[in-house]
């Protein structure tokens, strides 16, 4: 019997194809309404998926590498992903909720308590997709630093490489601060001791006293340690610098191999519990129908859709074959990016999932109530346990 696979779905707008909002079943007018997101996450939960991720950014979507565009024919605008996840949390019960949040222009103190609180409102189902922003126009929304404008021709320049290294160095410090803040309260710090009048045992609260090149943060958090101890930290990585970042800072990495051999090479560079491959999926009852679906959207968009991840067009059975083939490369799971919402999500939950279950390769019901539990990760010990406040 094969090892069970883990499956996540990446939610972004009406799907990952830029013309997906024009598909017959798309709901572009509902994108900014809460029910839209609740419906999608509940569908994913009905398929017993491990978790959903929710895309986000600190700037408007754009098709240009060097700044905003003025297109009127693609989806523009989005809601804050952490708040979408928390809005959905009380209406779901088992599925993990992994919003994207950018580290480059934000405060680790705020993100730490936001993800911790998502863990409270979801009773242990929170994760975080750490995102670095190298986009100059997003820096302009904050006005606190300038980043070099990267154009396709300058990506390999010395200056660009240095900028990327700095951004990931900062991200590494950021995740360290967030993780320390999550541990800055021991689990039993709240004592409510009526006899002495003490609400907390302050020896079980810890200053994190982080002092780095990019920021210093004193702590402790204002929010007690979340239910999972450490909510799941995840990162998308395409190249050696982000691979190293994911290996050092994340519990789970998303990678974008083109085939099983590439997957094998990448997995070897990221020695952490989970490495998932990202795939954009167009699913249909026949391979031809799936291809036609993509072609129709490409024609509407007058561009052949390309992605950083491999694009799969075919049937759920064919996709199950591919996932099991790639799994042999050491991948523990997949993050599927539905090209069209809700169509390809429903094809995952009602086509792919039953097929994988027939092969005993995917769960038939939720076996744990926390996201770490679904991924087979223990609740970690607190790094400060036993340490005493100086």
């Amino acid at each position, binding site marked *: 019997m094969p090892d069970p696979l883990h499956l996540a779905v990446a939610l972004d707008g009406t799907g990952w194809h830029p*013309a997906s*909002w*024009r598909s017959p079943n798309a709901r*572009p*007018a509902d994108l*900014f*309404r*809460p029910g839209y997101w*609740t419906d999608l996450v509940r569908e994913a939960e009905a398929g017993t998926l491990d978790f959903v991720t929710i895309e986000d950014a*600190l*700037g*408007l979507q754009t098709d240009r590498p060097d700044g905003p565009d*003025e*297109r*009127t*024919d693609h*989806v*523009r*605008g*989005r*809601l*804050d992903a*952490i*708040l979408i996840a*928390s*809005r959905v*949390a*009380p*209406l779901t019960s088992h599925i993990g909720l992994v919003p994207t949040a950018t580290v480059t*222009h934000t*405060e680790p*103190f705020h993100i730490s*308590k*936001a993800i*911790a*609180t998502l863990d*409270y*409102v979801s009773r242990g189902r929170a994760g975080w997709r750490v995102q670095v922003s190298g986009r100059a*126009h997003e820096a302009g*929304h*904050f*006005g*606190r630093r300038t980043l070099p404008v990267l154009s396709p021709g300058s990506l390999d320049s010395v200056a660009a490489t240095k900028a990327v290294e700095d951004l990931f160095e900062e991200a590494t410090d950021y995740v360290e601060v967030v993780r320390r803040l999550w541990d800055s*309260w021991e689990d039993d710090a*709240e004592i*409510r001791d*009526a006899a002495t*009048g*003490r*609400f*907390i045992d*302050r020896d079980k*609260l810890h200053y994190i006293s982080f002092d780095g090149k990019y920021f210093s*943060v004193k*702590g*402790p958090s*204002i*929010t*007690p340690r979340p239910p999972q101890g450490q909510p799941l930290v995840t990162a998308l990585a395409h190249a050696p610098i982000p691979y190293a970042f994911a290996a050092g800072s994340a519990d789970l990495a998303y990678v974008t191999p083109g085939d099983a051999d590439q997957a094998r090479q990448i997995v070897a560079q990221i020695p952490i519990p989970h490495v998932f491959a990202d795939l954009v999926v167009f699913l249909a009852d026949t391979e031809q129908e799936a291809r036609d679906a993509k072609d129709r959207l490409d024609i*509407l968009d007058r561009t052949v859709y390309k992605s950083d991840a491999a694009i799969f067009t075919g049937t759920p059975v064919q996709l199950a074959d591919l996932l099991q083939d790639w799994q042999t490369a050491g991948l523990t799971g997949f993050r599927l990016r539905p090209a069209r919402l809700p169509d390809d999500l429903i094809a995952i939950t009602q086509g792919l999932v039953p097929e994988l279950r027939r092969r005993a390769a995917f769960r038939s019901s939720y076996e744990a109530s926390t996201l770490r539990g679904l991924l087979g990760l223990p609740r970690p010990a607190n790094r400060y346990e036993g340490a005493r406040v100086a």
Partner: protein
Amino acid sequence: MACSVYLARPTATRELALPKQVHLAAHFPGVNNTTVWSDPRAGSHIEFDSFVKLAQTAERAKFDFFFLAEGLRLREQGVQIYDLDVVGRPDTFTVLAALAAVTTHLGLAGTINSTFNEPYEVARQFASLDHLSDGRAAWNVVTSWDAFTGENFRRGGFLAEGDRYTRATQFLATAAELFDSWPADAVVADKTSGVFLRDGSVGGFQHTDQHFDIAGRFNVPRSPQGRPVILQAGDSDGGREFAAATADAIFSRHGTLVEGQKFYEDVKRRLPAYGRTRDSLKVLPAATFILGDTDADAQEKAAVVRRQQVSGATAIKLLEQLWNRDLSGYDPDGPLPEIDPDVSDSHIAKGRASVRMHRDPIATANEWRARAEAEKLSIRDLIVEVTNRQTFIGAPATVATEINDLVQQDAADGFILVPHVTPDGLDEFADTVVPLLQERGVFRTEYSGPTLRDHLGLEVPA
């Protein structure tokens, strides 16, 4: 008195219509000694169920909104984390967004600091919350200037005290530009024609002032309320002016008749200068309540609660905040210290707004000593008296009358109620006082619309 009520009404039509309507909000119990965590009924201040319970009680009672305060560093006293009150709280935005899923009409208000945030991020969080709640978001804008809290943030924290309203004003003005950067009809989403956006430059902004120099494209479409409802809590002249210029409601601390009327008139008279009507800014003092079967019963309960709020250890700590000295050697059941307060700049208590309210500590200490001697009060007795924050004490009918009288006599437009027990502390008020206000025709029996602006009678900004 009835006469003055009608004189205070600006238009004839109001006299013929309903009496002035009361607005009510529920403040989740906070991290100060008002909250009695030692009560056997007291639940978690962190678990989501507690927030759901209080919010659903408030919504059942048709309250205008639910309110969450914020503090971005744990309080310290004598270089140690303060441990006698509730410690710890969740993230404001995250809790409010989750509450939007389990309520349908209740406004969702939170304090968000303008010092330790940037306008682009806060604007998209509030616009998102407003979308995700179908138009129920409200923002209590506060500005810190202490370096103590700044130690938790990459930008540091220090802001000259005189700069705080400049920062807040510019932050709010910048956020308003972002909220307004998408026209309400910007999203077309017409599948047939392939037009998603009416205008490809939507969301554009450029803002330069002393605090912010930003430009680009905002990425959240205009939300149901246009902008979140703006609350403001400042009490100084600068704070009142800021509120008159920008706020939809003021979270005031003047809940008594005379003080309330003075404050009410003072802020309302500032409105015409900004082209605003008297009704466009609601004055909502913070208030506590203790209910009983009879007024005497409520008074007895109130006395018990006051002593629960001020234990011997708490009394010493509160005394230290005025004396600015370590007084741990003093007996709370004994007399006040003879030594005078330390008036040096460094302060024993950190992360606490009330500390700054003691403008002349030596004079206050002399007053307290004189009172303690005259009334034969111990340290704890004295602190119970001087920190008494109880507003409404009585049988439900008494409290309903007091609330309505204060509103009809223009000492307030309503109240932000802080229960002293989490999360059930509002139940009795909802079950007994609210029906009386409804019977008197001064409080809604059904929500008249879906948004918080509807509840507060505020217009959607152009």
